[in-house]
């Protein structure tokens, strides 16, 4: 078991012929993901890698292949519309890897996606992987292993670092999901925590946050009330100066709000094991399993 994606995930890739889209589609296929279709306007009728049919629109791809999940690799200026298109076509799970979607666009995208009954992950995220089953996005498959730890994170490479620590020490993962570092995102910590709590294959949860906003504090409250499985957490940005955007659009300390210290205190108050260094993840998990 896993959350959001599994062996039955039928994936359509939006922007399959682009540089990033084609590279990561090949990686996903090599990993065993069921890639059933690609979309690039104007290239309908062609094939990707000799086996995957390419369509002009997502609606055509869904009608012909029954795709239920989409992943978006299009350039930033087309990304918001790609999300609308996927939702419009009845895709249930939309994963937007593309970065650079304006936040004001996201204020319009989110109500639309909800009205369509779809779930969005991202934008500006590495996507997710259920080891041994399916990989949607850019998380490197070789650092993951099948297992019982659920990983949810606002970051990309920092997540890889922590997955790497887990795998090295024999802790495989049920699903690893990067929710993205933007101020407005489709799926937040709480959504993932809820799913991990309900997933019988997940026995413990690792949560990786960073400075900016209050998502980690809200997630901590949720853990205190609704999560019975052990949770350990990490907050990046203890040394970040206030008022400066640390790469991610969402990673900014405004005034006194959103500091790492504040978030770590919230985690501790919810009985979440707080790592001081990424490599402490294994030791903390061991103590709680």
């Amino acid at each position: 078991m896993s959350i959001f994606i599994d062996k039955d995930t039928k994936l359509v890739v939006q922007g399959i012929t682009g540089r990033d889209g084609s590279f990561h589609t090949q990686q996903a296929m090599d990993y065993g993901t069921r890639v059933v279709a690609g979309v690039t306007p104007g290239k309908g009728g062609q094939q990707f890698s000799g086996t995957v049919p390419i369509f002009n629109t997502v609606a055509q791809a869904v009608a012909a292949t029954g795709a239920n999940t989409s992943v978006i690799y299009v350039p930033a200026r087309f990304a918001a519309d790609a999300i609308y298109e996927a939702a419009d076509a009845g895709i249930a799970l939309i994963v937007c890897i593309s970065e650079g979607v304006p936040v004001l666009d996201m204020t319009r995208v989110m109500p639309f996606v909800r009205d369509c009954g779809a779930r969005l992950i991202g934008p500006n995220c590495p996507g997710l992987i259920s080891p041994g089953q399916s990989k949607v996005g850019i998380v490197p498959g070789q650092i993951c292993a099948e297992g019982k730890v659920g990983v949810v994170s606002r970051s990309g490479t920092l997540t890889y670092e922590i997955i790497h620590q887990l795998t090295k020490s024999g802790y495989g993962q049920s699903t690893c999901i990067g929710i993205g570092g933007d101020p407005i995102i489709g799926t937040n910590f709480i959504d993932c925590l809820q799913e991990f709590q309900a997933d019988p294959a997940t026995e413990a949860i690792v949560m990786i946050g960073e400075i900016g906003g209050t998502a980690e504090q809200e997630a901590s409250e949720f853990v205190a009330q609704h999560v019975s499985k052990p949770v350990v957490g990490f907050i990046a940005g203890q040394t970040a100066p206030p008022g400066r955007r640390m790469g991610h659009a969402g990673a900014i300390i405004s005034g006194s709000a959103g500091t790492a210290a504040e978030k770590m205190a919230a985690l501790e108050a919810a009985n979440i094991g707080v790592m001081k260094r990424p490599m402490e993840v294994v030791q903390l998990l061991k103590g709680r399993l």
Partner: protein
Amino acid sequence: MNLHEYQARGLLKQAGIPVPDGEVAVSPDEVEQIAARMGDGVVVKAQVHAGGRGKAGGVKLAKNPKEARAHAEKILGMQIKGLTVEKVLVVPTSAIASESYVGVIVDRASERAVVMVSPAGGVDIEEVAAKTPEKIFKQPVDPKYGLLPHQAMSLAFNLYDDVKQVRQAATIMQQLYQAFLNAGASLAEINPLITTPSGEVVALDAKIGVDDNELERRPNIAALRDVSSEAPAEVAARDAGLTYIKLDGQVGCCVNGAGLAMATMDLVKYYGGEPANFLDIGGSSSPEKVITALEIITSDPNVKAILFNIFGGITRCDDVANGIVAATKQTKLAVPIVIRLTGTNEDAAVKILQQAGFEALTDMDEAVQQAVKLAQEAA
């Protein structure tokens, strides 16, 4: 991207908001002439991307043109939070009957733009929010309908009793929301929004922060970028597709990914060092990017050791290794370097580095400890 006050005032004016006339000057001569033209008293305001201008002595009242000139001589060229003041804004002094706050921000929780007002204006609004939250009033805006007139009126009744002023303020809020949208802003605020003794509602100061992701489709806003007001290294980094923020420590960090970059800085601190910078080389690396990154890091005289921390995903470790080798062939490094790489094409990278005489580590903790130790020995 932050706009200067004079640029933000311009956008508010375009949106129809009453803003007193002001002029920008780059020399004391100009300031004196402008002050003479304006008559009466003026305010000379440093135009620099830093908060706390007033406290730093960057905002001064002048009773006459000579005094305005004297202030300008001090303010122009002044350093505020490490940034040099290149321009000042000269505005006539305004008689103030009351001061309020009006702002529009993107609220993560409601996933909407929120209009926020307070009768406690003219001071730091975050302090007001922290100490007297009951003095802050908010209205989330549905992007489908915009800020509706009655919503703006409801907010404005929290500021004024006089219905004429309420209507003026409500109109200003709707105009501010429009200016916020047109600029692709993440923040637009008027602080203070004043009433004059004759009862007019006027915007005295303006602040606009623009979402960087909007700049590509808004060339008119992108053209407002003033690179002379930014740290040169940060400009060079941005041009090369890197994100760089200078800090005050001795360990220069070069990392792929924002989260890992922050975690690396934190680990430097954990082991008793201080990071010299935040530097994210981004996803798809090329040797050229790495060369630029090294140039930027070594241009900081505080740097006593350099730390590379690369977790290869999209980023290929061999690209990074090639960049390091090429950069150090051009100019020999004056400080020690510690390189940690793992992930995509790690084996090839290790070979490239070893052939060039570098040691390559695979463990993050070990690499950070080594870099901190080297920086301390050199200091």
